[in-house]
């Protein structure tokens, strides 16, 4: 068990998301950076879609109420377990009473704290993800608060799997070192996040100069950006005529353009339907990159094709397979 020591931290319990209830108006929710959550789980021998804690505000502190192995993945944050430094993309075992402090990241925005066995909250409509709009799933359908106590599934047995040989813990290479960043034109600045985009149904309704700006300019992530979506600021995108779509299903990654001409990228907590015109869709394989883009930094869009977008998903799966194999190799060598 762990106890949350931070107040109003905006942290939530998330797994890979809730699939199959869109026709009831239920969006998927789920981890913004699914890759980081999956790696955190793999390091602990969990199923890669087990639930973890998504942390967007720092410092974040918890106390371990029992011995327990855990991992931290996602943003590059400085963490301490008592007085010991803990590296990101690393698993280690905590002792009962240890306090874990996850500090402000040097890059990225969201950390994932995973526990051996996975965070144990009830499955609601097939998922442990927090549905903030519907106020269900996760921990009582809300963000975590100071004093909340969370269990891990089968925690007592799991921790024994680790023990002495794992005292120093082990980790893996973060995905940004393993998966090359997409290349923008003109070249993106170092602090810009480049993501690949497939043009969407209303793409051709935009003026040539707006489309030119869409691909070549940096789009600032405004403070009104969260799990629902990123509201971006940049040149005004002008359509050749005003469009009111009949409401239809949308998915995370869809870039809508409201009438003010400033794009919004819909993300994991977005409503699963809408009617604003869609200029493009950030491909599924790059949503983890968006999840780590900081408010105030800029996003760059680079056009891709459907086959490339499918190949990018396979690349992600390949990375996860390599991590899984490495973890299994490491464990078998210690037994």
């Amino acid at each position, binding site marked *: 068990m762990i106890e949350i020591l931070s107040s109003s931290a905006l942290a939530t319990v998330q797994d890979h998301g809730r699939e199959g209830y869109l026709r009831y108006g239920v969006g998927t929710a789920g981890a913004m950076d699914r890759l980081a959550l999956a790696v955190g789980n793999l390091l602990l021998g969990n199923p890669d879609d087990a639930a973890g804690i998504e942390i967007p505000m720092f410092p974040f502190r918890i106390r371990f109420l029992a011995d327990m192995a855990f991992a931290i993945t996602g943003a590059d944050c400085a963490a301490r377990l008592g007085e010991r430094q803990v590296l990101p993309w690393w698993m280690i075992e905590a002792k009962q009473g240890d306090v874990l402090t996850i500090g402000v990241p040097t890059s990225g925005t969201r950390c994932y704290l995973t526990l051996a066995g996975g965070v144990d909250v009830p499955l609601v409509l097939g998922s442990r993800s927090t549905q903030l709009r*519907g*106020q269900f799933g996760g921990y009582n359908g809300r963000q975590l608060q100071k004093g909340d106590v969370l269990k891990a599934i089968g925690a007592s047995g799991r921790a024994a799997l680790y023990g002495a040989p794992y005292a120093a813990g082990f980790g893996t290479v973060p995905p940004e070192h393993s998966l090359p960043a997409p290349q923008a034109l003109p070249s993106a600045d170092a602090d810009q996040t480049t993501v690949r985009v497939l043009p969407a149904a209303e793409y051709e309704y935009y003026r040539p100069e707006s489309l030119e700006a869409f691909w070549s300019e940096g789009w600032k992530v405004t403070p009104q950006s969260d799990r629902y979506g990123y509201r971006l600021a940049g040149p005004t995108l002008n359509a050749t005529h005003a469009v009111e779509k009949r409401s239809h299903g949308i*998915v995370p990654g869809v870039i809508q353009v409201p009438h003010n001409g400033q794009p919004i990228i819909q993300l994991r907590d977005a*409503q699963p*339907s809408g009617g604003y015109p869609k200029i493009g869709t950030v491909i599924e394989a790059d949503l983890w990159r968006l999840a780590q883009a900081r408010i105030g930094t800029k996003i760059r869009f680079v056009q891709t094709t459907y086959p490339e977008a499918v190949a990018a998903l396979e690349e992600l799966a390949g990375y996860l397979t390599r991590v899984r194999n490495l973890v299994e190799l490491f464990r078998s060598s210690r037994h």
Partner: protein
Amino acid sequence: MTLTVEQASMAHADAVRPLRQDSQRTAVAMKHDESEQTLRVSMLGTTAMLFEAPGALDLHVQRRIWTLAREVQAWPGVREAVPGVTNLMLTFAMPPADPASLGDALRDAWAAAGELQIEGKVVELPVQYGGEFGPHLQDVVSHTGLSVDEVVQLHCAPLYTVYALGSHPGYCYLGGMDPRIATPRRKVPMLGLPGGAVSIGGVQTGVSASTGPSGWNTIGHTSMSFFDPARENPATLAPGDMIRFRVERIAS
């Protein structure tokens, strides 16, 4: 809940008739609302495909969408078939190998799809129009050139059909709104609108089921529980059910 299903269907036919008579007027009022749109199939990245039915926004088209949804849900590779307002989104666990042929299959299935008749239930919702809970009623008045009373009367006159659920858990998209009160979505979505908000977006109207952001014009408020995740069928209303709004109060 006073109307029988049979009465409801008749009342609905009355409600939709003026809509078709006014379709040309709608097109003028909304400028480019696609009141006679063409059939379109498009991809939403690699995870979903959108089918938009041709023709008017009416119950005949929507009933064919329900048929299409029922059929397509069983196709291999389709995770979920999600009806929208005269459209259908398919989601996939794995990206389809050949989206173009899937699109062709959708067109064929659409051509063959008849109207699905659903005998839904009828629910009456008392509404407080305007005032604190209807902050954009004046915007609808300004846009339409009608008076507050006229907007309210036109809004609560029809028996609305639930076309589809979406937006957030339990939310219903309703068909049958009088096009004379159509008002474009807001330039910038509002954050934190309360549950029970009765609103107009383009030629559509609906009631929010919980607090959240919305780009629609909020004209009133009602109380109703639309969703309970503990139930086997979590949503209170389903496509084919009907809603009647009753004026409880008009605040200025």
